[in-house]
């Protein structure tokens, strides 16, 4: 019973396509996140939601749109994919969004844009 699960694990697509990555957590946490790990291994926050409300929105192109239908789900939709979007995307959750509430990460989705 995976705590934070994201699908798909791998996603290969062509430039210009639209794709979605799904994330679900069964930990009962209030806060969910999307992180991106680029080719240089930097792990950077993209979005944070607390009880379905957007809390953090880093400087992310508006082609990226998170959707939180309920507090257990945070999906990431990406429009008009570009080569530079190739990365590993990690979903995460935490109890209450405070700094001393550890993040629980999913296993990542490797997106390759050709």
């Amino acid at each position, binding site marked *: 019973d995976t705590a934070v699960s994201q699908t798909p694990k791998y996603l290969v697509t062509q430039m210009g396509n639209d794709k979605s990555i799904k994330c679900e957590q069964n930990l009962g946490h209030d*806060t969910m996140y999307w992180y991106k790990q680029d080719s240089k291994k930097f792990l*950077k926050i993209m979005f944070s939601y607390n009880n379905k409300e957007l809390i953090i929105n880093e400087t992310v192109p508006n082609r990226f749109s998170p959707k939180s239908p309920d507090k257990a789900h945070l999906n990431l939709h990406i429009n008009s994919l570009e080569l530079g979007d190739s990365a590993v995307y990690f979903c995460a959750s*935490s109890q209450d969004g405070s*700094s001393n509430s*550890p*993040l629980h*990460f999913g*296993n*990542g989705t490797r997106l390759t844009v050709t």
Partner: protein
Amino acid sequence: DQQVKQNSPSLSVQEGRISILNCDYTNSMFDYFLWYKKYPAEGPTFLISISSIKDKNEDGRFTVFLNKSAKHLSLHIVPSQPGDSAVYFCAAAFTGFQKLVFGTGTRLLVSP
């Protein structure tokens, strides 16, 4: 602008010895620090944390040391075990604000 730096991309240690992983940060306003461990094809998992009001926190074989004046923290693993072989990420945050800033990781290899 890399606010959290892990200057050693890799470290090799023999089983039973001490592993010391280092991390430097530039923003003196960070007041909460964490270490995460990552195995291949998995997400990072939380290991240990420390608040800036402390200079040491210990959990079993893992100890994190914080030197605020030097803006430096380190993770000590004693004794090191082959199962500790993974990538270790240092992260920093402002208390009450869950926006972690991660370093680029150090790959630890513990050989039998």
